[in-house]
């Protein structure tokens, strides 16, 4: 039966009647619904700034970018407006970038606060009001920005102060990289804002190579030992590649790149090029002699943490948290192919001294030995170039080295011991103990007889590579007497 229009009208009328007047209070038929409360929106701050003389703002003297505005930008804005992920292409982490503005235009117009985008977004005149998703800035803070723009929006930041004094160590810094020199006489070890070049006998630092980068994460000597390559930087601020003259201790070249530290710097065996991995998923390649950047590549999808050149310097391999070990043509920067099957985030790579065979390792704790060359065409999920998978380590792998006599592979990482494997058989040869925590750098002496290690506890340890007997251990940093300042900076 079809229900016509008038009929449904009658029916609904009846229904209303039954619901409303059946002798009971109608409300009792309905469940007690949850009481929805109106959300109290925060009161918009009242902008009465025009009535307030500037002196009443508690701003003494001239408005200052460095003193008044910068702290507000730092606390409230730079979480989103920073170079790593600049929302609206606006970066407020430096005056220059702030002045440059973003994709909506200049951030401010000197002398004209009412026309300045920053003010208009902070007050909510333009939507969405900033800071996005947060309570509006206190009126006093907006007034400070406004007053500064009104006064001409001048940059009064002091010049970057550079502390030339060598760092004073109350505690040994973590060793994040170390490398034996090709002549076997010295070991380069990372410090805080510097590199120690230490006699291999451990008797004091011969050189302290001081720089701007707080952390040195990779060290590599040119084959002739004349140059030392250091990659690092200051976390979340900048990356730096340094090229040192080892004889004079002079910084030959320095390149700042990206907004974070750089990883896994390596130099080609012929000395021509240097490759370095970055947190923006790129790999930058430099000409060693000039320090000029040749090209950068962006095949990776995550941080690139390690690199190594092939024997003939014509290719290099980069490893990344994206799990890939990529083979790159060194001349052109062209991607050739993946050396591995993607399994786990990769942290480290090292190469056989005379062949294009690499060992890679990372989060799944297994070192994998791969041939860089493929006997036949690649197929999907082809793993025929995997030569060997070594033992599972007790923690993620962070450091790998292959001795120059090709006999040994050293594996270090989060576990507090370094395992030395026979590179021919893949059998564990010896276990180097004595560390209190993780190991971030391992390096064989050029004759392959000794292994140097360094890591969390800040000590360099030198072992007999054949049996892991500890020959020496020393703290490369000069430790001053004194107690930590206890928090008061």
């Amino acid at each position, binding site marked *: *039966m079809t*229900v016509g229009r008038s009929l*449904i009208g009658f*029916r*609904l009328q*009846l*229904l209303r*009647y*039954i*619901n409303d007047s*059946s*002798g009971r*209070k*109608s409300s*009792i*038929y*309905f*469940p007690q619904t949850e*009481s929805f*409360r109106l959300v109290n929106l925060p009161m918009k701050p009242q902008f009465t700034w025009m009535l307030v003389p500037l002196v009443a703002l508690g701003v003494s003297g001239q408005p200052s970018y460095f003193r008044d505005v910068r702290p507000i930008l730092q*606390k*409230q804005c*730079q*979480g*989103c*407006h920073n170079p*790593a*992920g600049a929302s609206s292409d606006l970066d407020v*982490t430096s005056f220059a970038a702030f002045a440059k503005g973003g994709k909506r235009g200049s951030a401010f117009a000197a002398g004209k606060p009412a026309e300045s985008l920053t003010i208009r977004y902070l007050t909510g005149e333009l939507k969405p009001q900033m800071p996005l998703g*947060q309570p509006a800035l206190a009126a006093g803070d907006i007034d400070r920005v406004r007053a500064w723009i009104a006064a001409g929006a001048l940059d009064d930041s002091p010049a970057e102060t550079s502390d030339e004094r060598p*760092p004073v*160590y*109350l*505690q*040994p*810094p*973590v060793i994040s990289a170390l490398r034996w020199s090709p002549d076997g006489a010295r070991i380069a070890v990372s410090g805080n804002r510097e590199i120690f070049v230490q006699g291999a006998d451990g008797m004091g630092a011969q050189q302290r190579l001081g720089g701007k980068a*707080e*952390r040195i*994460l990779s060290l590599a000597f040119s084959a002739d030992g004349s140059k030392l390559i250091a990659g690092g930087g*200051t*976390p*979340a*601020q900048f990356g730096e590649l340094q090229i040192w003259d080892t004889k004079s201790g002079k910084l030959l070249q320095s390149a700042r790149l990206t907004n974070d530290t750089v*990883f896994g710097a390596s130099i080609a065996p012929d000395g021509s090029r240097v490759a370095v991995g970055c*947190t923006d998923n790129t790999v930058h390649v430099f000409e060693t002699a000039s320090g000029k950047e040749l090209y950068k590549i962006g095949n990776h999808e995550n941080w690139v*943490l390690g690199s190594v050149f092939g024997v003939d310097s014509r290719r290099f391999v980069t490893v990344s*948290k994206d799990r890939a070990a990529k083979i790159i043509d060194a001349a052109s920067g062209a991607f050739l192919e993946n050396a591995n099957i993607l399994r786990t985030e990769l942290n480290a790579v090292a190469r056989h001294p005379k062949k294009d065979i690499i060992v890679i390792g990372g989060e799944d704790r297994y070192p994998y030995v791969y041939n860089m060359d493929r006997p036949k065409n690649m197929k999907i999920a082809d793993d025929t170039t995997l030569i060997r998978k070594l033992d599972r380590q007790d923690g993620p792998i*962070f450091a790998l080295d292959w001795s120059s006599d090709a006999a040994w592979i050293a594996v270090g990482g*989060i576990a507090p011991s370094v395992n030395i494997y026979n590179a021919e058989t893949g059998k564990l040869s010896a276990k180097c103990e004595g560390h209190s*925590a*993780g190991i*971030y750098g391992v390096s064989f002496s050029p004759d392959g007889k000794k292994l140097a290690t360094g890591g*969390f506890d*800040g000590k360099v340890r030198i072992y007999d590579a054949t049996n892991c007997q500890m020959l020496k251990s020393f703290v490369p940093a000069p430790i001053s007497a004194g107690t*930590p*300042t*206890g*928090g*008061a900076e």
Partner: protein
Amino acid sequence: MRPLLLLASAAALAAQPTVTFLRDVAPILNKTGCTSGPCHGAAKGKNGFKLSLRGYDPQFDYEALLYDLSGRRFNRADPGRSLMLAKPSQQVAHGGGLRFEKDSEYYKVIYNWIARGVPYGDPAKDAVAAVEVEPKEIAMARPGEAAQVKVIARYADGQTRDVTREATVESNVPDVAKVDLSAKVSGERTGEATMLVRYQGKFSTIPVTILNPKPGFVWKAAAQNNYIDMHIDAKLQRLRIQPAPLADDATFLRRVTLDLTGQLPTPDEVRAFLADTTPTRLKRSKMIDKLIARPAYTDYWTIKWGDLLQSSRKYLGEKGTFAFREWIRESIAANKPYDKMVRELLTSRGSSYEDPAANFFRVTREPKPTMEKTTQVFLGVRMVCAQCHDHPFERWTQNQYYQMAAFFSAVGLRPGYEVGEEIVYDQRADYDMKHPKDSRVVPPQFLVASAAPVPIPNDDRRRDALATWLASKQNPFFAKAIANRVWSYFFGKGIIDPVDDIRASNPPVNPALLDALTKDLTDHNFDLQHLMRTIVNSRTYQAAITTNEWNETDGDNFSHAIPRRMGAEALMDGVASAAGARPNFPEVPEETTATQLPDPHVGKDGFLDLFGRPSRESACECERRADLSLPQALNLVNGRTISDAVADSKGRVAKLILAGKNDAAIVEELYLAALSRLPNKAEAERGQKYLSGGTRAVRSQDLLWALLNSKGFLYIY
């Protein structure tokens, strides 16, 4: 300089020379939100930095902070340059914003910790052993009052510290009592709430009661039918709530018939019940016994258990579903003791056709989901969070998840000889449960120790030990969970609610009542009919929905009945019985009611699913929806289910007209059929006027249509 320590006793200060990760730093990471779900506690971390969710794994967090990327996040040589200080204080850009200021105490604590060599601390000394709260409970005479909570951490070495500032205090009902960041509780309105206090993986709760300040409350004792009313009244009296009186006989009959059998009483049953002059309590009690003895009772509870055990041909095949359903039906018809029924499920093995209980394992198939289902359905405990991390609001750890799952690790399934048959068996080799972190073998272990220890064999028959432990009177969860669940079927909510999420932070609204029900159930050897009979005989169950000035805001303490929308099957059967027309379901015999359907496959995507019939995809009670939606309203008004039923040529209206009934009789009959009560005078007159205003048959259909669309029909009240 170190206020955290200054707050501790002088002795504690002297004995504690250093700042450790466990005692000092980890709480800051939790309090400032670093370890929260949207931030670094996310499964994949944030921006390359991952911490454990809400800091449940301090060892992991310590390593992440210090070891990742060669110690990227701290600088021992120059602590102030550490990334873990520069980021949260926004010295360098931090996507998570400002977490603490450079001159804050938190900053200084972390600075000191780095400057002193980042000691982890000794779990035997520095781990929090217990969280103590002051006051233990909060009672407010009226809304608008406030109370300060103090949180004391007691460490494994016996020392204590005031951690009020770092602890997280949350209210489970913020519109009754809310709490601010300084742990000050303020009463918002009359009622009860519970403050959940968390600190470093340890928990405590504070019950908060806010009384009605209205003057003039005088407790008027009402008759108590059994111990349920005694416990309810004790609570109501304390809260100054006056319970509602008994519902009238017609309302009671409709309510109890729907709740026990999922069917409406017929007009004749209503008439007979109203005419019966037996004293009310006895009359109702006799009716309850009659209803429990009806086949419809068995049908209705077969649906409930079919839902919970996920009896569906999607998992079991057609024959398997019928076999499993038959097993459930027989268990209910025979009133099989609940513990026996559960033991049969958990120890079932062999052919799914010969031992239909074995279908229990065919739904979830794998050890982990089987364990999750077992704990959720039979213990009311949700373990699923603990698969990946320690439960954030409970004491269940990831280890326990795998220990419990290990009981089922040997259960295997293989095809049988007949089509669709499967054999449940216990594997003889390689069935160990492995921990995902390090692949170590996890031996089975019970969730909590039982008062009567049960030995666990370390062989493939370990699940038998689980069944013994689980379905035992001594198990602290088992009887309580079912008592609470059964209660919820008669009141629309559990004493603990949701019923399958029992945890310290979700306390019962009336613990004494739940304990009494639990004890009654175990004293009667898990006789569920006894439990139901006790519940529906109580005055509390039989209370009216009408409210008085003292109980009108109460929705938690069962001081009056709360209307519940009829379940999908009851609604459909109700329409059919009121209209005297049976729906036609495909693939089943003609007279089958919605309550008798074998599984959700029949009538899929129709009226039943629209009204919230569960698809049996999960063992969660929440899968059955009791919501109200626009599509439902449109279906009732315009859909075929009701319009076809009222116009059925063999239906009630047609029969009344053909029998030559007068208008008064038709109106009365239709009210009885749809609303299970007689129309009052005004309704009767108005109804008759309407019928006489046009074609009687059509007008009678209109009236029935309107009654079926009314709230008085759609709700159980």
